[in-house]
């Protein structure tokens, strides 16, 4: 029989897993954003070498299944002497993998900016750095923030794969609870709710950010 009360004693374990998932998500969102910004700038730079390197990066990490990447960094890298714990392996691998998607999303925003606006800022003598900081990135973000939101929600969902490298985040914790209680239905109802909460919060943040960035053109 369906009986959620059977889960009461496991709520702390769920919450613990939830916290790990939230932590990995936050660290990886920040990490992938930073990597994405740098790679996007390389993609649109006039330097052929930077263009090539960033293109390789994006193509490489968008074309490898995440589970293969995470196995490689958790089980493969120690073979050549690189030891990182499961939490940081997860954060780093997610940042690097999702960074490729962030880069493409930002690049789309950058190349869609009206060239005249960039030329205007050039014509007044603004340095390259200032043009990126004050003109290009803010405008690119206004169009990229929605698709960026999808990328980050995907990132949260992908953290579930980290259960495969012994990290007891939400999914990992749930599997353990399910195998001790033999009540997979109730366990996974909880799991669904917790992921729902996380992605719901992120969607809310993205919506507020989008409204803030787009207040200039009346798009809400």
């Amino acid at each position, binding site marked *: 029989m369906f009986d959620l009360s059977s889960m009461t004693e496991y709520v702390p374990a769920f919450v613990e897993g939830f916290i790990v998932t939230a932590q990995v998500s936050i660290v990886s969102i920040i990490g992938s954003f930073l990597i994405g910004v740098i790679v996007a700038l390389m993609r649109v730079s006039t330097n052929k070498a930077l263009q090539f390197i960033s293109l390789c990066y994006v193509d490489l990490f968008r074309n490898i299944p995440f589970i293969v990447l995470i196995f490689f960094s958790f089980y493969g890298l120690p073979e050549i002497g690189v030891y990182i714990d499961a939490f940081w392996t997860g954060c780093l691998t997610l940042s690097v993998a999702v960074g490729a998607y962030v880069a493409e999303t930002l690049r789309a925003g950058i190349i869609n900016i009206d060239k005249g*606006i960039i030329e205007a800022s050039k014509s007044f*003598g603004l340095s390259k750095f200032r043009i990126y900081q004050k*003109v290009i990135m803010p405008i690119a973000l206004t169009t990229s923030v929605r698709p960026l939101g999808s990328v980050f929600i995907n990132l949260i969902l992908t953290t579930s794969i980290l259960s495969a490298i012994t990290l007891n985040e939400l999914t990992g914790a749930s599997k353990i609870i399910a195998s001790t209680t033999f009540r997979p239905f109730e366990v996974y109802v909880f799991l669904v709710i917790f992921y729902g909460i996380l992605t719901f919060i992120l969607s809310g943040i993205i919506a507020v950010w989008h409204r803030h960035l787009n207040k200039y053109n009346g798009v809400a």
Partner: protein
Amino acid sequence: MIEIQNLHKDFGDLKVLKGVDLSIKPGEVVSILGGSGSGKSTMMRCINGLESITKGKIIVDDFDVSKSNDLREVRKRCSTVFQQFDLYPHLRVIDNITLAPIAVLGQSKEEANDKAMELLNSVALGDRASAYPSQLSGGQKQRIGICRALAMNPSYLLLDEVTSSLDPEMTAEVLDILKILSKQGITMISVTHEIEFAREISDRIVFLDEGRILKDLPKDDFFSESGGKSDPRIARFLSKMGNV
């Protein structure tokens, strides 16, 4: 002083400018006329380094546009008003105007704001300082474009077909401001299709045709029968523009 010497500009196989020589003295108001494709806008874009130069030289107050160290100085001295306004859409009007003065000239925010408000009031837009460009009409946008250019205290104001995107009413409101400016001693180089406007404000008219200067004459000579109009190409152009 702006000195353009034997300026050539190619886009691939297409030769747009084929040896332009032009010098503009401080305080002069010069209008560049010519049909579309004559190279007017390209020449303007070369002056502030938005286009690279294929051959020849442009010197602005001893600074060579094609030297990257000098280009920043050139750009401090030359401010452009653009045909499509090209305001920063994500910035409020006041920040559109103060961005470059703060970032390039190193003005303090207060100093730049004061100057911007002064300029905005002079074009009767003081009450729109905190609006976004999308909330303004075309004529208002272009008046902001002029304020943005003037906020740099430029020695040279480059006007690149500044009324071509405006309807006649808005054109008038922008031209009125430029007429006042032209009497205040600022050096103006204006690419325009507004023949009457060019006739009213200019000291000199330069007529470009197929990438070369066909005539470079004081205004009155240019519009006289024995001067500019004696050239059939120019006479045809003027009559086509509704000016006989």
